[in-house]
């Protein structure tokens, strides 16, 4: 009974790694047809169409029903789904996709380039979050024949950026169910999606469950194996763990369980708890500094705060072995962009922190307090709450009094990104396979006030702006990678935000599942080869 969390997490990590790649050991098994796969669905969304909304809460369902042009394979490289091949013109302004033939929508209509054209111009470019930024310079999609789609850009579009973004931002919707049917956002199809994927939508009872069934006309031969997928809506994470143990749920994606329950299930041979299959969903815990506070505008104070936090201690005692020390805005799982040299790191050194604060003229006053700060933790997860408390506790040790301001999601975004009513904020930065998708906006100046997850720190740096702009239109992959190395080193030197912890979402899945966690964004992928053993 009396087992510390640290020990518990250790053990579970050991077990998790020993059962890693379970499909290898079961390689000889013949896939079994049939069965109902049940999934923990924690955060209901307003709609289910992934062409309109980029979030894991949509992919976990819509990603089985609709498909994208390109997905990532087991090695994290782009692999065609609805597109069979692609080619970029030398000037980077034209990218041509050859589409798969013989694919039909769930309602029987054929899938053609007209669907791609409509989705790209009306959904990705106009509505889809991050899509609007990615496709800002998309001027047209030409359809010379039903199986060719030609994307035309006003400015050069790096092919590897587009291919890395499309797995998330490249889902295609059926034109014939949207065109001329009124406002796209209000279309009832969004809550009963129609796609080309391995599973067909059956039913959505809000607050209770979503059901999809096997698509008998799926274009991949012999796929899928499952009869049905049922997503059970369970908002209480402890309850979700209980249902997994009772056999009512097979799979809880995206760190859907509490840290302690994940550790506990990891020790249970009926389950596999691991980060595998989520490499495409890396995130870093952040500390954002508001430069409008004159103390924080001083680089010495920001560095002192970084030095005051014993990150390895926090990770070891609170997060377990599934988290690791973060090195910068680009996480280490990003094989294409992770730089060899990340620039300055800030190891735990309380003395150095204190002397930096002294140097900045912030001497301790009565009761040892130098100054006070308001910290806004984002309400996204348990680890953020724990980290906020840890920041409060650690900074008190160097004479900085921290007041934690508790908010809900809407209030957090409003107060941090619009009203700038914070001194410190802490949350997650989600890395989306290419720094240009959602990382560089955290650093680039000139972001409109109120735009969430962008540079609203009151910090402007022409040097980093130039690096970011050059990289965004650089078509040579090697030069792009080098530019992002500069970007990381600059970010770590100036420290407008600090990214001290790197985490990958945890998956908890029944040991009966086969062919799972075999791609870097497996939770979001189509599960066409997933099957359940007896």
């Amino acid at each position, binding site marked *: *009974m*009396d087992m*510390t*969390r*640290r020990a518990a997490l250790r053990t579970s990590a050991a077990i998790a790694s020993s059962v890693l790649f379970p499909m290898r050991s079961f390689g000889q098994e013949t896939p079994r047809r049939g069965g109902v796969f049940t999934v923990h669905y924690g955060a209901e969304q307003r709609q289910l169409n992934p062409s309109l909304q980029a979030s894991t809460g949509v992919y976990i369902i819509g990603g089985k029903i609709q498909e994208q042009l390109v997905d990532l394979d087991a090695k994290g490289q782009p692999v065609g789904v609805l597109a069979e091949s692609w080619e970029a013109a030398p000037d980077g302004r034209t990218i041509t996709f050859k589409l798969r033939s013989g694919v039909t929508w769930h309602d029987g209509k054929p899938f053609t380039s007209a669907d791609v054209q409509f989705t790209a111009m009306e959904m990705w470019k106009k509505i889809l979050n991050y899509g609007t930024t990615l496709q800002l310079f998309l001027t047209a999609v030409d359809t010379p024949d039903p199986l060719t789609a030609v994307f035309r850009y006003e400015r050069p579009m790096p092919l590897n950026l587009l291919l890395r973004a499309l797995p998330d931002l490249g889902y295609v919707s059926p034109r014939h169910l949207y065109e001329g049917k009124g406002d796209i956002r209000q279309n009832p199809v969004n809550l009963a999606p129609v796609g080309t994927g391995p599973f067909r939508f059956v039913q959505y009872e809000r607050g209770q469950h979503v059901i999809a069934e096997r698509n008998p006309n799926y274009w991949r031969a012999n796929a899928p194996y499952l009869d049905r997928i049922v997503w059970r809506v369970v908002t209480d*994470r*402890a309850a979700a*763990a*209980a249902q997994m143990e009772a056999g009512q749920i097979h799979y809880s994606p995206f760190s859907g369980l*509490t*840290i*302690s*329950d994940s550790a*506990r299930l990891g020790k249970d041979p009926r389950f596999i708890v691991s980060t595998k299959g989520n490499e495409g969903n890396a995130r870093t815990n952040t500390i954002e500094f508001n430069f409008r506070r004159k103390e924080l505008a001083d680089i010495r104070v920001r560095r002192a705060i970084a030095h005051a936090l014993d990150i390895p201690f926090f990770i070891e*005692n*609170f997060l377990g072995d599934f988290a690791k020390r973060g090195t910068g805005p680009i996480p280490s799982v990003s094989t294409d962009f992770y730089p060899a040299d990340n620039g300055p790191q800030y190891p735990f050194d309380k003395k150095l922190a204190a002397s930096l604060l002294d140097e900045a003229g912030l001497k301790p006053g009565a009761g040892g307090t130098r100054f006070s700060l308001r910290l806004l933790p984002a*309400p996204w997860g*348990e680890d953020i*709450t*724990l980290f*906020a*408390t*840890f920041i*409060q*506790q*650690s900074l*008190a040790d160097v004479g900085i009094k921290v*007041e*934690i*301001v*508790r*908010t*809900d999601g809407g*209030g957090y975004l409003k107060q941090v990104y619009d009203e700038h009513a914070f001194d410190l904020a802490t949350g997650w930065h989600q890395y989306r396979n290419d720094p240009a998708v959602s990382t560089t906006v955290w650093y680039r100046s000139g972001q409109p006030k109120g735009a969430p997850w962008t540079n609203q720190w009151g910090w402007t740096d022409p040097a980093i702006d130039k690096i970011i702009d050059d990289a965004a239109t650089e078509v040579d992959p090697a030069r792009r990678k080098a530019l992002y190395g500069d970007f990381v080193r600059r970010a770590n030197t100036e420290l407008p935000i600090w990214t001290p912890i790197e985490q990958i979402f945890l998956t908890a899945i029944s040991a009966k599942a086969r062919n799972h966690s075999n791609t870097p964004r497996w939770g979001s992928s189509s599960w066409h080869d997933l099957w359940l053993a007896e």
Partner: protein
Amino acid sequence: MDLVKRYLRSPAAVIGLLLLVLVLAMAATADLFYPRDPLALAGRPLIWPFSNPRFLLGTDNSGRDIAAQIFHGARISLLIGGVATAISIMIGITIGAFAGYYGAFVDTALMRVTEAFQTLPNFLLLLVLVAVFGSTLTTVTIAIGIVSWPASARLTRAEFLSLRNREFVQAGRTLGLRDARLIFGEILPNALPPVIVYASVVMAIAILLESALAFLKLSDPNVASWGNLIGAGRDVLRVQWYVSAIPGIAILITVLAVSLVGQGLNDALNPRLKRR
């Protein structure tokens, strides 16, 4: 003296008083026994109670000493309970007094407002208030006061309705006393006892409301509140259930103490009220 004697005659009231003294003693000695910040990192997270002599009641999932939080939490609960009750009773008395004294249009208007507050589920209004004004100790306390006044307003109003035509009030009127003087100087002192007794009910509810808010993670995270501890413990409930269980018992004892004392006071005061 008579009152004290009557109060002490009831064993339940005496037990209540003892429990209340216990909670007050915890609040008073918190700094003595646990001089460190109760929210500071004390040790490894999730140490079981009685397994480490340094942490008698163990540590929570943030590595904070549970015993320290229980002691310091007594202050917070009593503070929130006390101040919210004072606010609630003050609003209630003012509105009830004016409604009962003036009657007619003033009464109708004020009772409409009271009715509106009673029709709206009070916890729902509390959620809205906290979402709007934020989760600090001050706003939470005021918000609890704001949602719990209607019953005391009705009580005061009823007392005023029965008192406003009594002889001593009539006498005051003929002497030309101003309304404010009559309301607060003459009638109120006579209308007060049942309202004061009712205050114990308000205080009990106030403490429970704060803990419910904290459980939904909507209370002030910068203070060691029992409700916050229960809310934090929810994440580790399946194995380390003690994190939630211990502060729950503390709340139970406090609310029990307040209720028993209120009940005892009521019983002790009752004969006098009847005599009046």
